[in-house]
């Protein structure tokens, strides 16, 4: 019997569409405007006490709220109205003070049973919810230059200690040139440097009486340094973004030397940039001996436990600028440790300070330059006031076992996670390659909201026009195509939600475009059926042949479009990527709905019975 699907095929289609409905459903529950409380430090817990403190303040100010809860040590308070959100944020920050980061947030309202199924709404791009997008570039030239400077001072020390006389060492771009006056020194220096500085490629040249040894970093070594510089900046930026208390921030490497930062909901770019561009540093100091005078000492808390404190000498041995690398590793007994490399100058200073102080303890202080936000009452209004301040915490206090030099290690750490945390902090505070902003996009919240409304309106109107047209032109078959089109929209939304793809304004445009093009497959099939009937085929035969003949065409045409969409995804950035994603997913879902769903419906309506005339 033609034009009949076996039962399992109908069921399969039903199941796919039903799943589509379930996973698209969360998008119908609008997010609540909310405020999120995050403790500044892991040691602080958000408790019911804090929440009730906040709710009392909100009650007093007459701001409507609901659904306050604590989840993963984050407090969430939801609001009925958007305009309350900002007022509440200021109020809550004022109530709780500096221990908490208070951030604007959109809390999803997906029902529990949907969440249990792993369903959730699509993410909205910055252009739809407002926020800031930064692109930062790490200055690779400077990163290499800094490292080369460190190498130069090490080479100088080495050549001097081996009594190999040279005139000068100069650096031009990436090339280190050592000038010698005679062959013998040059040859000796060559073999010595080849052994000690394996990362360099050596070339000789002469200018008049002078002999030069040129050293260039091998490409691999240069790339490693660049990699290191980017990674270091990434870690630092991540830490700082966390400090901003933004919900769902994005910090990601892009290409060789760039870092993308996306902060949804942040409006105050100036503040965000101040914090991202802020600097951290390190100070290495000796612990004060018991007989030291009060004037020569300072007391600092530990970073992981504010209650624990130690008294340190005022004198600083070296700062983070001397640290060239810090890596967590394991010692010969498998215990965690952190290896630290210093530049020559730092090594010398470290050696001088430690050789007479063996058995004493040395501390590493983590220094952060921060900006504090005060809420001040002025002329009856609450104003945010920012004050820069410096925060110092001890991140390590360890006994000096022997005189330290260019590289040493900190042992006695409790766990690998502690050692990697310490290495991370050491790197965050050490000499980093300079970084600057190369792109910035700020989208105001009103524009975001406007964009959503415009997008939704155009999808609705576009859809309505197509539906009316199809119904008028193809009647019953048009109705079937419209059902398929709706299924297509549902499946597209479901797929995007499942992949947690980000919906952008061009993404919405992509959906609209897919709607227009999705009908294409149906139009192809229907024209083919009409044609077959004109050629004298019976209705059933025409349906059968129409679907079959059109399939090859649809397949070819869609595959090439998919090809283009994939290229678009590869070369595009941000919003354009969003467009490519919706376009490709739309092509895939429209193939399914236009061919399978339409066919199933046509089969149900016309299949397996005598039909004289098709309503097409």
């Amino acid at each position, binding site marked *: 019997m033609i034009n009949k699907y076996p039962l399992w095929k109908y069921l399969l289609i039903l199941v796919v569409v039903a799943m589509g409905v379930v996973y698209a459903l969360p998008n119908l529950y609008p997010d609540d405007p909310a405020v999120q409380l995050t403790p500044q430090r892991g040691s602080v817990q958000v408790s019911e006490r804090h929440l009730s403190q906040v709710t009392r303040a909100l009650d007093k100010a007459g701001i409507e709220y609901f659904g306050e809860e604590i989840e993963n040590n984050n407090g969430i308070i939801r609001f009925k109205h958007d305009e309350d959100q900002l007022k509440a944020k200021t109020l809550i920050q004022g109530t709780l003070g500096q221990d908490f980061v208070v951030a604007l947030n959109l809390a999803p309202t997906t029902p529990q049973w949907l969440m249990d199924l792993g369903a959730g709404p699509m993410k909205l791009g910055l252009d739809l919810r407002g926020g800031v997008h930064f692109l930062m570039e790490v200055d690779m030239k400077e990163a290499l230059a800094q490292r080369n400077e460190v190498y130069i001072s090490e080479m100088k020390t080495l050549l001097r200690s081996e009594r190999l006389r040279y005139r000068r060492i100069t650096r031009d771009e990436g090339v280190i040139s050592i000038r010698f006056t005679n062959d013998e020194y040059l040859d000796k220096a060559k073999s010595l440097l080849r052994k000690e500085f394996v990362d360099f490629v050596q070339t000789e040249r002469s200018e008049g009486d002078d002999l030069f040894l040129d050293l260039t970093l091998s490409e691999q070594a240069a790339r490693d340094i660049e990699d290191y510089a980017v990674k270091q900046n990434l870690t630092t930026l991540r830490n700082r973004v966390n400090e901003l208390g933004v919900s769902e921030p994005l910090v990601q490497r892009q290409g060789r030397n760039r870092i993308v930062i996306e902060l949804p909901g942040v409006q105050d770019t100036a503040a965000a940039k101040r914090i991202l561009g802020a600097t951290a540093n390190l100070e290495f100091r000796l612990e004060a001996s018991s007989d030291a005078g009060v004037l020569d000492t300072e007391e600092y808390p530990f970073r992981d436990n504010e209650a624990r404190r130690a008294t340190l000498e005022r004198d600083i041995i070296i700062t983070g600028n001397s640290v060239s690398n810090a890596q967590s590793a394991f010692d010969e007994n498998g215990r965690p440790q952190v290896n630290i490399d210093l530049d020559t100058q730092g090594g010398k200073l470290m050696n001088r300070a430690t050789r007479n102080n063996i058995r004493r303890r040395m501390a590493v202080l983590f220094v952060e330059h921060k900006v504090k936000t005060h809420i001040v009452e002025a002329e009856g209004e609450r104003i945010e006031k920012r004050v820069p301040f410096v925060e110092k915490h001890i991140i390590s206090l360890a006994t000096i076992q022997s005189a330290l030099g260019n590289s040493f290690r900190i042992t006695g750490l409790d766990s690998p996670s502690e050692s990697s945390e310490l290495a991370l902090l050491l790197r965050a505070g050490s000499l980093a390659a300079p970084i600057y902003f190369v792109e910035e996009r700020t989208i105001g919240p*009103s524009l975001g909201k406007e964009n959503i409304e415009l*997008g939704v309106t155009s999808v609705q109107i576009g859809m309505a026009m197509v539906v009316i047209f199809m119904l008028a032109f193809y009647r019953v078959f048009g109705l079937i195509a419209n059902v398929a089109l709706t299924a297509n929209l549902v499946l597209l939304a479901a797929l995007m939600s499942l992949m947690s793809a980000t919906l952008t304004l*061009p993404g919405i445009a992509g959906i609209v*475009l897919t*709607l227009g093009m999705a009908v*294409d497959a149906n139009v192809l099939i229907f024209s083919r059926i009409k044609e077959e009937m004109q050629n004298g085929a019976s209705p059933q035969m025409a349906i059968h042949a129409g679907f079959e003949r059109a399939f090859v065409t649809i397949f070819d045409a869609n595959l090439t479009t998919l090809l283009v969409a994939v290229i*678009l995804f590869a070369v595009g950035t941000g919003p354009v990527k969003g467009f490519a994603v919706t376009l490709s997913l739309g092509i895939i879902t429209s193939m399914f709905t236009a061919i399978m769903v339409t066919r199933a419906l046509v089969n149900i309506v016309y299949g397996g019975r005598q039909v004289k005339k098709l309503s097409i």
Partner: protein
Amino acid sequence: MSRINRSIDFMAKRKIAGFISVALVLLSLASLAVNQLKLGLDFTGGTLVEVSFQQPPVLNDLRSELENAGFEDVTVQNFGSDLDILVRLAQGFSPTVGNDVLAAIQSNSSYDVELKRAEFVGAQVGEELRDQGGLGMLLALGLVMVYVAFRFQLKFSVASVTALAHDVIIMLGLFSILQLDFDLTVLAAVLAVIGYSLNDTIVVSDRIRENFRRLRTGTPEDIVNVSLNQTLGRTLITSLTTLLVLLALFFFGGELIHNFAIALLAGVLVGTYSSIYVAANVLLALKVDREDLMAPEKEGEVEDDRP
């Protein structure tokens, strides 16, 4: 062929169509050479600030206020409505440029202003995006050519790529002549049109191939004509539904995707025309005939792929 109700002799006018296409392409190329594309911020780099007013401001006043405040090379224009203003600055990046512009505007007037968006793109980033965009377009054309050559035949592949290049050049030409901003979203539209127009061209090519194999009589010109007539209904209906949604985007999608919608509208119109005339024209010019398509492949093969 008596069973085909309406039969238009498309190919009789193919010389005229060819002439029009060549003229349009030449005009576009000339405009691209003389006027060039007005590249948007994404590709040139620079700073852009969009602000929203409560009452319509006087643009010239704004311009002079901004110039007095020390901004150089300022362009001020309406964006969508007379309440929304777009300010472009050639000046480099400063962290507070958005607020600076706001302050400058507010300093000398009683306007109530709101910052809607501020964008800065570094010159180097712009250059890279430009290179990537161009590369993406070429890559898309190249891959399409390979795919069509593989699925159909080389002559078809040349024909469809010619049609695509024709569409892209005319779209770019339109943006150049009208001096509309060409930014990343418009580039996305151009690539989408490549996909769309290709879709159209392939549907027609598919039918031409089928008819070459099925109809044993008739000159290539006849066969192309028959195929075009058979697919005409579908081509027009699909273009119409796509145009309907694009019109929705154009009128209701807002200012940010206005140019995107214009590019797609133009692209779909040109793409529809090119799938009828350009691709088929090139095929005939390349002297396509039955031999080219007498592949051993059987029509019946696809029967089992059917879902």
